[in-house]
């Protein structure tokens, strides 16, 4: 199995195994969460090395990840469950640190962790601590957000500088011996989503709002998210390289590592597709919130070529930003 990077291989795995086995209309949408009967439901498993890194740890990732998946459905996150798989010998002090940050993250997001489970496996059978969270949210607004709703003329907005989480974790592994002034961007996005939907309304639901689609740019980064949108909506996403916000420390580390920041994971950034004529209003709303102060319009939706993401480079060229099959590998001969 080489299906970890969140790219095409993960998709293939999901479609070939899980969708095949569990097929039903709700799963088939492959959205971040399922929506029915006024409720949104989602689940996520968390594995990260190292467990503690500047700006966060596996605990707040586990809470924020599920909170954000619910928020991306337009739901108000309410209740979470938490499952722990612990390796024998995992220090109790570390577990306390993890649960403390989960509690803090839950408080910040306004959700309760209401149920849970713990298993301890033999030494060597797990890497310290794995966490699974599931969450329920209520659909208090008449919105319908979907990766399949993007239309030509829409704007693509990112809520802040990208790539900080992924690069922070990579550097925190300590093998690279690089000092960088960086923290993970892990954060709950539900309040930011509220601000945006209050200003613009969402989807084709009751209020005819302007927000078509929200996605948190986790594994595979912004590049993967916009590819999913391009594919699901059968539209082209055209990004403007110079408009994508990237902090200098992230840019520097990406340059050193030869990694394109568009593919680096975030844990507190979302991509919003918004009707073109509401783009400025959406941007202003996002910027009014601390988590969206550096939001930027990074591109637009075109009708042609459907299913592809193009990047207009600083030199005026048009590069294809493809869904990666696995880890990035050089392609130049």
């Amino acid at each position: 199995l080489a299906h970890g990077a969140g790219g095409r291989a993960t998709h293939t795995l999901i479609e070939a195994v899980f969708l095949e086995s569990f097929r039903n209309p709700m799963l088939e949408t492959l959205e971040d969460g399922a929506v029915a009967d006024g409720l949104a439901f989602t689940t996520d498993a968390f594995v990260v090395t190292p467990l503690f890194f500047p700006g966060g740890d596996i605990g707040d990732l586990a809470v924020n990840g599920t909170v954000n998946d619910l928020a991306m459905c337009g739901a108000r996150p309410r209740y979470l469950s938490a499952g722990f798989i612990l390796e024998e010998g995992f220090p109790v002090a570390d577990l306390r640190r993890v649960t403390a940050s989960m509690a803090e993250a839950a408080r910040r997001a306004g959700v309760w962790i209401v149920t849970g489970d713990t298993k301890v496996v033999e030494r060597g059978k797990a890497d310290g601590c794995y966490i699974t969270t599931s969450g329920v949210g209520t659909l208090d607004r008449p919105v319908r957000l979907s990766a399949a709703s993007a239309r030509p003329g829409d704007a693509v907005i990112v809520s802040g500088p990208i790539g900080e989480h992924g690069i922070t974790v990579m550097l925190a592994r300590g093998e690279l011996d690089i000092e960088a002034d960086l923290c993970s961007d892990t954060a709950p996005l539900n309040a930011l989503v509220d601000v945006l939907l209050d200003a613009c309304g969402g989807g084709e639901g009751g209020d005819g709002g302007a927000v078509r689609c929200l996605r948190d740019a986790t594994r595979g980064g912004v590049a993967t998210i916009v590819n999913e949108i391009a594919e699901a909506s059968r539209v082209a996403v055209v990004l403007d390289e110079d408009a994508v916000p990237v902090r200098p420390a992230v840019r520097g580390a990406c340059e050193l590592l030869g990694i394109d920041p568009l593919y680096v994971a975030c844990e507190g950034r979302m991509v919003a597709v918004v009707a073109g004529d509401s783009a400025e209003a959406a941007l202003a709303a996002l910027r009014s919130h601390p988590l969206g102060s550096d939001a930027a319009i990074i591109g637009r939706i075109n009708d042609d070529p459907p299913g592809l993401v193009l990047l207009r480079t600083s030199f005026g060229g048009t590069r294809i930003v493809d869904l990666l099959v696995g880890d990035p590998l050089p392609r130049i001969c």
Partner: protein
Amino acid sequence: MGTGRGPARIRVRIRVEGIVQGVGFRPHVHSLARRLRLSGWVGNDDRGVFIEAEGEPGDVACFREGLRDQAPPLAAIHRVTTTAIPVRGDRGFRIAASQGGNHRVTLVSPDVATCDDCLAELFDPADRRHRHPFVNCTNCGPRFTIIRDVPYDRPATTMGGFAMCGECEREYLDPSDRRFHAQPICCPACGPVLRLLDGGLHDDDPPPRGPGDSLDGGGPRSDGAHARGPGDGADPIGAAVEVLRAGGVLAVKGLGGYHLAVDATDEEATRVLRSRKHREERPFAVMVPDLRAARALCELDAEAERLLTGPQRPIVLLPRRPGAEVAGAVAPGDRRLGLMLPYTPVHHLLAAELARPCVLTSGNLSDEPIAYRDGDALARLAGVADAFLTHDRPIHVRADDSVLLAARGGALPLRRSRGYAPEPLRLSPPARRAVLACGAELKSTFCLARQGHAFVSHHIGDLENYETLRSFTEGIEHLRRLLGITPGLVAHDLHPEYLSTKYALGLETPGSVDLTGVQHHHAHIASCLADNRESGPVIGVAFDGLGYGTDGTIWGGEFLVADLVGFTRAGRLAPVPMPGGTAAIRQPWRMAAAHLHAAYGDGLPEDLPVRARHGHRWDEVVAVARAGTNSPLTSSAGRLFDAVAAILGLRDTAGYEGQAAIALEQCADPTEQGAYQARIADEGPLVTIRAADLVRAVVEDTRAGAVPARVAARFHNGLAVAAARVCARLRDDTGLGTVALSGGVFQNRLLLDGLTTALRLRGLRVLTHRAVPPNDGGVSFGQAAVAAARDTLGLP
């Protein structure tokens, strides 16, 4: 039957297949038949030329011989089949009307440079086509780039919108005329119109988009009038030459796209062109009016002159004469110059009037594909060209100039495109099912194959660019339609991220096509085998930048035991990490860091200049390599050249693919005989060249005071000797006596000649490329050969 005066008459039906349309074949048949007093007819259909001929047996036999022996210069006859049929006793020999049908096995001719007859008319003041920029005949002129569909008839070309005048029509219909059925025939009264448009750089006006856009339409002028632009009645060639003489940049519409031209003796103009093309660092090609002018710039032998004057008119890379009168900025740091002779009437007129060498480079910004649609060219080149020399005959297919390297054993193709594509190459074993081979990623071509024919496409370019990807997919559709090929088998590279691989995988709907993956370096070696019409097994040396290996690492310094069907990896260069993946390709100094770390570990001298130049970045890059973060292992020979170029201070970064490696070759003293020693070790099943030995020798020789020219040469020689020793080892192990050399690194003539010599000294036979490039432009041909060979055996 018969006349009673001589032997009995016989009648035969003859079918001729090959490149026999649009090349004056029917007039040839017609005049031959009349000379031999045969009766019958000749015609074109979608399979080629059909003939019925009746006469005395001896005359019919002569006729059959003459079909081949006296065929017009551009015809390429692949098959003649003859069937005896009953005599009809008809009189006279006529040309029958073209017949349609649904078998499309006609071959499409490549574009052909202006022939001597047309050239004579072009410069003859008494001729009605004197200075006509579109003069052509059945022996020359545009073909592939103007064909929209087959059969090859005027309405199916971009000349379809130009109605012939009476005089042209008479020539077109006269079987004894050189222009009989010359589809692009025209004259000043009825042909396309050349004009010079201002590039709009001198004032604040927007670029002249309007006229350009209207040119795209395809030329039908409903009112029959000449839509001459501003400056009507003026001489566009004269005005264009004035632009060049004044140091301006001129965009010129050629056969397969727009070129950018400047006076090649004008240092300032050449620099301006480089800066307007955006950091362009590649050497520029130079067009000279004739061979005499070529001889003044470069050293030419008979072979070089043959290449330069051939009907394909490629760019030929030739040794530059010391003191040759061209600006330094044309090809900095290169001892060679790419020369080309004019290949269309427009270029002939321009070159003759300028009477100086002229830079002719592709009309694009750095890394973009060449512009070929008028509106697009005017928009994209508006900030680059001071003026546009353009016309209203649309280009249907983009085709870049072909490039050849004059090498010891004959011409080595570096890019096979205009003038060559889509002429088929022989494929053996023939394809059982039709094949589409999708090629690689950079310098991409694709290949369609049917039976014994492999049609390697024109140069498509680097697929990461959307425009290029589109010309890849549209190019496949176009050629498929022209040739009537529906592939049942699709071959592709194994690299999961190549857009060509993804394209191939996307074609697979159940039951429609079968896919076959071909490892990159196997495809290189197969392309060399097929290029030499062999099928192996051989010892294959595949040295290139990189390709995806079957073990998930990046290969590029490989020794394979291979035939067309399969291969085993038998040897390689010792692998090192590529720190930062693609970044290590753009920054050769990173490869120096990786190779020096592999050679010296932590004992690397601090004061080594390449290390000192990069300060703390050096240690960071070494840490990235050591951690293995985004640092795949590679056995690439190209990356080893990069590393050595950086160690010698020749290039720390690369503005284009292969730049550092080319700098290393151009720096090397070809007369130097010394060679560094590299040990050869068995690592599991792989015979491995210790690249670290070469790297240490480079460092130590340099520290001992050897000049870069000597060090570079000793490195080349050392690698050649080591590679030859590996081949000799493999010969002893396998009993194989032939070595095939392929991969982009073999564009390096010093290494190619050195290794060829070293192999021959060891009694090995050497195969090198003839028709397709050793670089990734040849990969699609290799994939097609592998797919066909596997299919013949029923293998997946």
